[in-house]
């Protein structure tokens, strides 16, 4: 092999290995960090066609409405717990910390945390969006049974 070809072969091999390594790494990191979204009913009854339930210790996101009257605050610490609902069963969220400004009973929220009991989540993050009429799209879908309307694919509708 002449030196130029040899150099090219080396470069190509390096690139192929590089790309392989990067893809492998990315897939590995992705697998660990994809958090599935559940509604309270999906968490209890199972999600998808196979009715898969999350296992204890799984990191997940959950969205629903805060059940009015369910917010219990600890007297002296910042420990708070509340229940979430969509259409059926209730799920309890426990959280330690300051709740967001727009957290209110009856409002849709999204919490991220770890499942500690089949119907209890220890949340490390609670999000309520900064908008009066806001309800997370996922919650709106689940609560109202309205499917996210796909954009209509015609360009001439000039409304």
């Amino acid at each position, binding site marked *: 092999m002449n030196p130029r070809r040899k150099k090219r072969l080396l470069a190509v091999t390096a690139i192929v290995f590089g790309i392989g390594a990067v893809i492998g790494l990315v897939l590995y990191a992705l697998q*660990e960090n994809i958090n599935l979204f559940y509604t309270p009913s999906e968490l209890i009854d199972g999600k998808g066609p196979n009715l898969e339930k999350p296992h204890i210790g799984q990191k997940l996101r959950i969205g629903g409405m805060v059940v009015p009257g369910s917010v219990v605050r600890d*007297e002296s610490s*910042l420990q708070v717990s509340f229940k979430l609902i969509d259409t059926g069963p209730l799920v309890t969220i426990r959280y330690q910390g*300051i709740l967001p400004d727009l957290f209110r009973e009856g409002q849709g929220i999204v919490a991220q945390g770890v499942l500690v009991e089949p119907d209890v989540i220890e949340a490390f993050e609670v999000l309520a*969006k900064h908008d009066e009429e806001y309800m997370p799209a996922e919650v709106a879908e689940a609560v109202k049974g309205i499917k996210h309307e796909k954009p209509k694919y015609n360009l001439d509708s000039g409304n």
Partner: protein
Amino acid sequence: MIPEIGYFSLTLAMVLSVLLCIFPLWGAHTGNLRLMRAAPSLAVGQFAFVLISFAALIYASLTDDFTVAYVAYHSSSTLPWYYKITSTWGGHEGAILLWLVMQAGWTAVVAVRSRSLPWILRARVLGVLGFLGVGFMLYTLLMSSPFELLLPYYPVEGRDLNPLLQDPGMIIHPPLLYMGYVGLSVSFSFAIAALLTGKLDNSWAKWSRPWTMTAWGFLTLGITIGSWWAYSELGWGGWWFWDPVENASLMPWLVATALLHSLSVTEKRGVFKSWTVLLAIAAFSLSLLGTFIVRSGIIVSVHAFATDPDRGLFILAFLAIVVGGGLTLYALRVSQVKSEGRYKLISREVALWLNNIFLVVATFIVLLGTLLPMVHKEMGLGSISIGEPFFNKMFAILLVPFAILMGIGPLLRWKQNKWTFLQNKMLLSAIASIVVTSVWLFLSYDVVAPLTLLATTLAIWIVFTTGLDVFDKTRVHGSLTNGLKRLSLSYWAMVLGHVGIAFVIAGVTLTSAYSVERDVSMKPLDVVSLNQYDYRFEGVKSIRGPNYSGHAGVVTVLKNNNVVTKLHAEKRQYDIGMQFMTEAAIDAGFSRDLYLALGEQLSNGGWSLRIYHKPFVRWMWLGGLLISLAGFMILGDKRYRNNKKREQEVA
């Protein structure tokens, strides 16, 4: 009357940009000089009319003209005047109008400052910019006019600007970011014009470079200020959330960074030409993709923007035309491009090529993490989110080789180097940076995690190797002062940019590793200690602002019983909309920030408070400022100033 003038002049601007798109391109195609010569005046005229239109919207906002729907939805009579001006880009329609102002502005500046270019290239650059202008103006006029009227039943009071946006950061963040986004369209136009002309030579890179650098400088500044705004306004003490909207601005930045490094190789050595062109197309495409992501409503983000599928579709179609057209042209013409220079493995060319690889890989990672949740959902597989740890981990892995390379790169010369020549310098820098970092961290902190030590060492390594290079380059010219004077501004831009990155790396690492936060419940005169600081809660008092009321928790901060500062952490309720907003109190410092947010009152009468101690968090933004300064510095470089002199001679 004024809003009608605004709409009308926008229509006129649109007509001019259609002409700007057709005349010069047709003229360049047929060789008609008269048509080409029309381009600069059309560009300036277009800018003037867009400016009138923007002024009309500002006027409507300042005079509380609530017959204009946009003003009624995004402003109110009690809003301070500066936020009234800000409100003209606080909502979707106004933001797009601001985008148009920037687009037309860049086009006009290109028209005025491109006299040294051959007519055929100048006409094509302006023609492509005109085409982009047509796209955005069509969008504004058809789908998102800010001049829609609410007649005859208009409200007596507006709905007020979103309280989150009532912040000094919001006044400057969007204009800077848009300057960057739109500025990349100039690099794009230069690339397309060069492809059309079929002449991709060094002079093309030389013309494109200052424009790209400037746009990149604005983009850097915009992202930096956006991060600072999130930190000071969202009340969680976070400065980067890997939110899709943030990712949308990071992707063009990464590609633009790759582009300007690649441009320097093309300019100096005549290699990487086709790759540079591809990056220029990609950088602007990613700006457009960012706009699509933000405006289409396809993703749920913490940034609450008005979204609409129809609008998203228009942007998507426009994106398809721009990217598709650009890439098709690229595919047709790229075979004519030939590289001239030759280089060996240990050379600056290869170092810059690796820099490009890392930046492009980083872009792909962000792109994947941003688009995957959307694809997943559209395919009906349920909704997922990709956590911050994914991005953090990937960037941490990429950082190590990238930072090492960043130290070596500047020491290398073009074409080829002897390894032995580098060995000593690198060994010296490596040992010095490990020793300095270890002494610094182990003396300051009880626990030093290996990763923290590694990342901080890399930051110091970049500073040391860059310093060594400056020293080397000055030594050649005898005395130090004489040597410093001889270095070109574009060299200093490199130094500044790299030191800026070192600051960002150190700031991010140290603030992530050593930030401490505590959620506490406090009654008046309670004292809580956190990292050598004592926080004494003085109680809560009520406050009243121009358009909000609320209460503020007053906390005295003490260190060794000396008062450091008094912080007022506010909870505001805005009069219109009755939204609650946490306004964090921050005591900023070079080596640490004290950050305080007020929560709600507990049933036992105490108040919940969140206290953060954030070391070196400001280094991140300091780094960002240095990097953007590097982008603007190149404008003063002799090589590009000489361009101007030649212009004057020709004129």
